[in-house]
């Protein structure tokens, strides 16, 4: 891959399971990544990320406080350029959604194969979105919720194009990007861009919603 020379390689792993850390760490090192830090709790993750300045974080959602979703929120606020890949064993939907809305680039389940995980980390490092069918279903549902909420406020909600909805539904139904590209007669890159745009809109609208919420609650200063 020609782009690999450009690819960020400094990775931090956050997980409270030493065995898991070791296994994933070994896999990633073998494929040219550098593990600059590991953390077993949210507190360690926050402290060590500030010290080691990783470019990519692989974040387990179920860690001792603060939880993975909260850490993702805090770290991305502090380091907006960070690429976060969220991993979870128990697939807790609300937490996954929260982390992704805060700016995580993607989500994988822990039982994904080593190849899938490696590929996920690689794509995250390159700034691509990593979507499982489960995450696509969550994001679709979330957009519909946000549109309904915006309509209640006589407001223009976040709008997905017909194409974006189409792509997202195909991802949710388990089609690979290659298959989606074939069935829609577009390039693989175009599919990737659609998914990326959806994620960007979700994150953007999340910030708008947070601001609206703050205004509704009468909090006017921005901190």
């Amino acid at each position, binding site marked *: 891959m020609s782009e690999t020379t450009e690819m960020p390689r400094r990775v931090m792993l956050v997980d409270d*399971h030493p065995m*898991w850390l070791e296994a994933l760490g070994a896999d990633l090192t073998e494929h040219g990544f550098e593990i600059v830090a590991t953390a077993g709790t949210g507190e360690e993750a926050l402290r060590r990320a500030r010290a080691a300045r990783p470019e990519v974080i692989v974040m387990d959602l179920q860690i001792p406080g603060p939880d993975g979703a909260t850490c993702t929120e805090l770290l991305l606020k502090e380091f907006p350029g960070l690429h976060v890949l969220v991993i979870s064993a128990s697939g807790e939907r609300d937490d996954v959604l929260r982390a992704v809305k805060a700016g995580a680039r993607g989500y994988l389940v822990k039982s994904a194969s080593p190849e899938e995980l490696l590929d996920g980390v690689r794509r995250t490092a390159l700034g691509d979105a990593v979507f499982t*069918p*489960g995450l696509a*279903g969550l994001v679709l549902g*979330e957009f519909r919720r946000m549109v309904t909420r915006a309509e209640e406020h006589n407001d223009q909600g976040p709008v997905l194009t017909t194409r974006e909805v189409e792509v997202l539904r195909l991802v949710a139904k388990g089609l690979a990007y290659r298959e989606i590209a074939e069935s829609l007669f577009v390039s693989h890159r175009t599919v990737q861009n659609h998914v990326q745009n959806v994620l960007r809109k979700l994150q953007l609208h999340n910030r708008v919603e947070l601001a609206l919420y703050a205004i509704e609650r009468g909090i006017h200063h921005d901190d």
Partner: protein
Amino acid sequence: MMDVPEIFRGYALVRVTALVYVLAVDAVRLPSVAHPAVLVAVMLAVSAWTAFTLWSYASPARRRTWVLVLDLVATLVLVALSPWVLGPGSEQSVVPLWTASAPMALALWRDWSWGVLAAVLVSVVDLAAMTSTEVANWGGKLGFVLLTGGLGYLVAALRRSTCERERITASAAAMAERARLSRLVHDGVLQVLALVERDAPSFGPRGLLMATAARQQEVELRRLLQSDHGEDDIDVTVADLAAVLDRHASASVTISTPAGRVLVDNEVAAELDQAVSEVLTNVARHAGPGAKAWVLLEREGEDVVVSVRDNGVGGQLEDFEDAHRRGRFGVRHSIRSRVSDLGGVATLRTAPGRGVEWEFRIPGGRAQ
């Protein structure tokens, strides 16, 4: 006995107000009484005694029986001495109204019946000491007795319900903590299973078996954990379709749903559940070895849409359309009729080598 601080606060307010009233009344009639010096001493003593009793009653540990009894005895003595202190013709005792404090304390912190007994005692001594034969006074005394009893009774009921509420809150907190601990334990198990699934295949064929077994156990455990949620549902006419469909998750079936719950009529949930499980049975039987399936649940406005797609061998659409004649896809008919019974539409798409995809769309109204 459980302590409800509000009861003491209310009591203290009544007792202090009564004291102020006593001091005012006695101050006004001080020049005209038989023994003014004694009345002044009574006013001081009553103030001090009130302060002491309130200090005692403020905390459950200091609410000793001897204080309560002494409080009542003091009241009786003051009432009995009243005619002598005030002189002939006085209508009220030296401590009007304040006489209610001791019986009230007994009703609140011992039992309503003790309160009633004390109130009767105070009233009788009052009437006897005043040597009043005025029958009109009796009504007031009776009212006082009844009020004391009623108050004690109400407070006992309040205390019982507060006690019950605290017990429920405590057990809810204990249950939440238990749920949190079991989540931690289960998460640990899930992590180990995931690790086995991940690394075991590199140990050869036996490792592959281990990985498959771990995967099955992971799915089972996750299903168990998910079915744990939502059991606190009170409304039994609706069901969370997301949770219902989640039960179909397995090593070869992925379920995607929105976050949160998707509430629909029970009947809708049950029929869609059946339709999905029939489709998945077909996938397992006819889609070919290693075929996977994906179930997507969406809510589009009022509509509920469920799609089931597999990546199996697929086939000619016409073959599927008249499959029920050959009996091979006998369930196809029941899939369609289940969905149309709900007022919905079932759409089937397939092509050779391209898997099969069903879409069930149930219009709003039936969905909540």
